[in-house]
């Protein structure tokens, strides 16, 4: 018979079956792992899942599916009964069958045309292998069972019959009428089936649809017979009482007779001898009930009995529960032609929890309400109302967006769990033992991402098993457990999802990689030498590279890893590798949560708007016009910027997009005009305040004149400020120069048409609030387009060179540049500053001659540089000023300044003579101006001397005079540090570099070393290493003082053996730590 003509039922069946199959695969693997220690729960679960599948397939006429499921079930039954140990080969057979079942179900319509004989044979072989010779033929012999009226209701193999009656079970055929016994009793077929399964074993069941009759039949006499073949230990009378059905409906089956008969018939369809060959059918049923009857049953199921359960309902539930409802007609079904329209694609459907749907409904309701309010408010021209509604709309929309997004979120476990199988099969093929640990299955990601990362992840996992994990013999050689460890984990971090693939295998052999890369001529030796371990590891993503000795079919063909890299980058993912030879490899992938709606920054270039995904954005840097010249440089043809001591390749968005004719917005006419010059304003005339067009004109002419005279390129000319977006493109950063930064927006990503596929600079487009289209820039694409990675390499080379040159030069120091008195520029070491606050002048209160401000529930004492030093007064007329907050003597104090100018890294060439005075450490030149370096402690000490008292050595409870060696190459800092060390009561020794320091150490009894890091001849790290190497000084405390504290730098220091890492001018900390280490003597 053909399929039940009910797409919905079939669809539900397919969906449910897929879930079952996924579960089965995982469970089978667990069974295999357990081996002989069979976990009855899992086996039962698998058994029931297959059983449900069989039932559903039978119901829908998917005969081949039913047959295959049935054969699997037989095998599993043996495992369940403990008669068979699930060896890997048996599990493989079952897995293969499960795979095929999955394939057949995804194309259910054509499933009856699939050749399953090979699998059936394999399954039967597995079953028969466990049987003795006598039992073997029982597999093939089928036995017909039936009642007196209907001799062949069921047809099962003799083997099954034997299995069912084992242990003294009695066999019954129960006859229910779906209408009278079940429906009218208020029961459901499922409940009945469940009831039966509690008391015995339900071997088979069928609904005799053929005997239903047609719609013309009298409704009172209509019946739907439902037969169940049931094995139980109960006796007949007990059973009828228990089940509460008429004893006439319970037919005991005499198995001995049946079997003997079957043996006589040698597997033929022999009816039990106690029953007549052709029994007259029951009066109510139509005569056609068995044998191939392709015509009639075709429409029988499509006209379901009016008051019986609808077929959809049954099949919808049956896969959840164990149901064996199975139409009798399924038996005779000829293979039906595959139907179009039934070709199902799983990914077109999505399961959404009812809770989310309810939430969506509520929000939709809210939205309608809001619309009504908006219409009203607009109609009544109620501005206040419109404002309220717009606020509400904003709220509802974001919530709605969130709710809809959540429907797209799926647990990553969906793909993670597939790897159990992948790893199992692969490790078997490769003769390796792998223990796969999966963590964070519940982490959710957008559906599209989940789908897209499947392949790259599979590749990485296969790669880890193939290249990473070692075979047991080698593991033992390397003192590792023979079973390799592969850990797959996912977790959230900073709005992204991190996936880690970690193995304890061989690790990446970077030497081999180097050789290979050299062979391929991708890099030269010098380049390789300058690469960090991380960069070397990343070489495995180079196209065409493989270090595998032998090309296996698993990996090692040199394709793949680069594709993985590209595919993940396309998703906005970042991939990182950490590996140590012989110990293992960890691959870390960072992925955005979703792709459909992304937060992004809107920028303009040539009056056109572009969106840049926030995920790529590292920071925004504005280089004021006055600094363009000194901070932006050229290496070869490439622009670079100095950013905190690093060189960053720069690119003009205008150039990246190949815009040839610059335009500008004429401020007067609001029209876009062709620009004759690169930039309009001349910022050297003062960044602030609008200059009149006439003034502009003159400065323009001047600029032109200067330009001509210098004959230099225009880029270097400081024509206007640069807005630079620092972007992360894969593993390196670059700066993108744009005209204007507009806004941060959440944008909906829309794909671009096929004609624009080749434009690598765009990741898509989005529609803005005004309906216009803005293009989304592809950060990786732009860097590829401009070949920035090559620039980055050049920059790196340059950096190395600079570093060499820099050795022995002054350190650079992060400085906060402020204005206090009019035109008086000051600098404050940034490392000392906790916060910067903007306050209103009116909020400052004066108590007992001291200025204070209410601040975070307490009061903050305010000081001004001008109160101590003879510098210009702060402009009091302004409405607001800034407070630089820093800790001192266990409390926070603030210094008022009128304006914050910038933060920058400057090489300190401090003149500590000319402007030295209380509160001022010295002066330097920044932005061509004399800038006073503020002594924060000095300012406070000048006003509140008691706050600034340095705890002397005596206060710390020390009697002995300790000797401290200060190693510092800058005279300014040396003086500073020496001063407060002596002030604290210690004896100070000085050295200008590491070499000198070692000499002093040799000659003097030194109790503690304070050292700078960047020094000529021997730097602080090298010095520390030398100290640590010498047994005399192994416990000597070493404190590193530096101007720029970074985590990486700190880690380097700690590795070298530094005890403490402190900021140079933070004397409180330094003194405290000196006290601490000397008190505790040993480090």
């Amino acid at each position, binding site marked *: 018979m053909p399929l039940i003509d009910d797409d919905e039922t079939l669809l539900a069946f397919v969906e449910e079956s897929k879930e079952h199959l996924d579960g089965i695969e995982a469970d089978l693997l667990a069974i295999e792992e357990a081996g002989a220690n069979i976990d009855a729960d899992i086996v039962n679960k698998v058994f029931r899942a297959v059983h449900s599948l069989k039932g559903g397939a039978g119901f829908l006429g998917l005969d081949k599916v039913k047959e295959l499921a049935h054969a699997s079930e037989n095998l599993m039954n043996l495992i369940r009964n403990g008669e068979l140990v699930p060896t890997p080969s048996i599990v493989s057979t079952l897995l293969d069958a499960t795979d095929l079942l999955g394939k057949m179900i995804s194309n259910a319509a054509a499933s009856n045309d699939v050749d399953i004989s090979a699998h059936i044979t394999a399954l039967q072989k597995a079953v028969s292998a466990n049987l003795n010779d006598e039992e073997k033929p029982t597999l093939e012999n089928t036995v017909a069972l039936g009642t007196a009226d209907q001799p062949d209701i069921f047809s099962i193999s003799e083997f099954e019959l034997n299995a069912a009656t084992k242990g003294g079970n009695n066999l019954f055929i129960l006859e229910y009428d779906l209408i009278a016994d079940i429906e009218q009793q208020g029961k459901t077929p499922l409940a009945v089936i469940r009831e039966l399964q509690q008391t015995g074993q339900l071997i088979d069941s069928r609904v005799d649809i053929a005997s239903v009759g047609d719609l013309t039949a009298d409704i009172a006499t209509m019946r739907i017979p439902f037969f169940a073949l049931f094995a139980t230990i109960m006796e007949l009378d007990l059973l009828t009482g228990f089940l509460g059905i008429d004893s006439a409906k319970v037919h005991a089956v005499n198995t001995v007779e049946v079997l003997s008969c079957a043996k006589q018939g040698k597997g033929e369809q022999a009816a039990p001898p106690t029953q007549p060959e052709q029994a007259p059918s029951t009066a109510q049923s139509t005569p056609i009930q068995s044998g191939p009857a392709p015509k009639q049953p075709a429409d029988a199921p499509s006209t379901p009995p009016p008051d019986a359960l609808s077929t959809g309902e049954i099949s919808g539930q049956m896969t959840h529960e164990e149901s064996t409802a199975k139409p009798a007609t399924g038996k005779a079904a000829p293979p039906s032609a595959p139907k179009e329209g039934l070709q199902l694609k799983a990914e077109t459907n999505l399961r959404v929890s009812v809770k989310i749907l309810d939430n969506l409904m509520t929000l939709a309701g809210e939205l309608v309400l809001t619309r009504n309010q908006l219409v009203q408010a607009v109609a009544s021209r109620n501005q206040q109302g419109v404002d309220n509604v717009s606020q509400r709309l904003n709220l509802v929309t974001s919530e709605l967006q969130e709710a809809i997004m959540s429907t797209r979120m799926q647990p990553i476990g969906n793909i993670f769990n597939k790897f159990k199988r992948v790893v199992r099969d692969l490790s078997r093929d490769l003769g390796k033992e792998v223990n796969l640990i999966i963590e964070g299955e519940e982490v959710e990601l957008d559906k599209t991402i989940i789908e897209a990362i499947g392949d790259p992840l599979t590749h990485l996992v296969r790669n880890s098993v193939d290249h990473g994990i070692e075979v047991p013999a080698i593991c033992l050689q390397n003192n590792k457990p023979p079973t390799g460890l592969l850990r797959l984990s996912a977790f959230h971090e900073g709005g992204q999802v991190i996936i880690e693939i970690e193995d304890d295998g061989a690790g990446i052999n970077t030497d081999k990689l180097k050789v290979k890369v050299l062979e391929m001529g991708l890099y030269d030796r010098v380049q390789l030498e300058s690469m960090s371990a991380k960069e070397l590891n990343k070489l495995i993503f180079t196209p065409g590279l493989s270090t595998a000795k032998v090309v296996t079919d698993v990996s090692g063909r040199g394709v793949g890893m680069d594709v993985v890299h590209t595919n993940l980058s396309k998703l906005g993912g970042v991939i990182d590798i950490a590996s140590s030879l012989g110990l293992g490899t960890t691959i870390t992938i960072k992925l955005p949560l979703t792709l459909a709606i992304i937060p992004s920054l809107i920028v303009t270039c040539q009056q056109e708007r572009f969106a840049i995904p926030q995920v790529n954005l590292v920071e925004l840097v504005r280089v004021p016009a006055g600094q363009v010249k000194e901070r932006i440089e050229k290496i070869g043809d490439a622009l670079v910027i100095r950013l905190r001591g690093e060189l960053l390749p720069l690119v003009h968005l205008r150039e990246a997009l190949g815009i040839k004719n610059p335009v500008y917005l004429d401020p007067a006419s609001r029209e876009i005009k062709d620009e004759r010059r690169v930039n309009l304003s001349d910022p050297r005339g003062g960044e602030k305040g609008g200059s009149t067009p006439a003034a502009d004109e003159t400065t323009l002419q001047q600029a032109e004149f200067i330009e001509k005279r210098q004959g230099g390129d225009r880029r270097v000319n400081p024509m206007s400020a640069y807005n630079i977006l620092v972007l992360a493109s894969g593993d390196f950063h670059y700066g993108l120069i744009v005209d204007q930064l507009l806004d941060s927006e959440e944008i909906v990503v*829309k794909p671009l048409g096929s004609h624009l596929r080749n434009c690598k600079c765009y990741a898509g487009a989005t529609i803005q609030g005004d309906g*216009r289209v803005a293009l989304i820039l592809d950060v990786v694409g732009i860097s590829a387009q401009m070949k920035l990675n090559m620039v980055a390499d050049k920059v790196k080379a340059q950096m190395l060179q600079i570093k060499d040159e820099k050795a022995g030069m002054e350190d650079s120091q992060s400085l906060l540049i402020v204005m206090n008195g009019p035109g008086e520029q000051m600098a404050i070491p940034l490392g000392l500053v906790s916060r910067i606050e903007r306050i209103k002048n009116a909020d400052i209160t004066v108590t007992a001659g001291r200025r204070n401000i209410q601040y975070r529930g307490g009061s903050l004492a305010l000081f001004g540089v001008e109160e101590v030093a003879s510098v210009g007064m702060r402009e009091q007329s302004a409405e607001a000023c800034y407070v630089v907050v820093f800790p001192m003597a266990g409390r926070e104090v603030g210094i008022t300044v009128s304006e914050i100018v910038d933060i920058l890294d400057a090489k300190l060439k401090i003149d500590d003579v000319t402007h030295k005075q209380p509160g001022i450490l010295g002066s330097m030149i920044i932005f061509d101006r004399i800038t006073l370096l503020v002594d924060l402690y000095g300012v406070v000490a000048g006003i509140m001397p008691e706050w600034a008292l340095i705890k002397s050595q005596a206060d710390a409870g020390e009697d002995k005079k300790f000797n401290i060696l200060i190693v510092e190459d800058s005279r300014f800092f040396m003086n500073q540090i020496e001063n407060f060390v002596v002030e604290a009561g210690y004896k100070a020794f000085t050295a200008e570099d590491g070499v000198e320091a070692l000499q002093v150490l040799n000659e003097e009894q030194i109790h503690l070393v304070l050292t700078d890091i960047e020094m000529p001849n021997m730097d602080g790290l090298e010095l520390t290493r030398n100290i640590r190497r010498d047994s005399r000084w192994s416990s000597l405390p070493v404190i590193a003082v530096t101007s720029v504290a970074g985590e990486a730098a700190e880690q380097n220091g700690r590795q070298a053996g530094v005890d403490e890492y402190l900021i140079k001018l933070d004397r409180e900390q330094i003194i405290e730590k000196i006290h601490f280490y000397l008190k505790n003597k040993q480090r």
Partner: protein
Amino acid sequence: MQQSAGKTSQNTRELAIFQVGEMPCGLDTSWVREIIKNTQITKVHLAPDYVRGVINLRGEIATVIDLRKKFSLAPCEDDGKMEIVVVRRSSENIGILVDQVRDVVWADGKNITPPPSNISGVTGVFFEGIYKMERELVAILNIDELLKTGD
């Protein structure tokens, strides 16, 4: 334009006629989804030169192809008057920028001839035929060739 069903015989085609430069072009109306005017086109830098830009078509992004560029004709002097014929091809909306949409006509198959290799200087591959109207010749566009992505 209102034609009886009888005219929809095998040999009759409904053509949208529009002007591109000096040349009248025809396009089978079964392709045409809509015609829009006065919409903001967002330029796409680095795109093939015949791509005028992208537009917002009710929430979808549609690429706009400049027929003059495609046919290597001089650019239009007054861009503002140009119209966009939106066609749908392989589940993608594409706008075709034309000077002016003129009419929709029923073309009798016997008045349609195969294209010469070259029509007013434009390569013949873009056309699938020539429709002879009373006073002029209309080049029927071969949409597949026209919208080929070229790679």
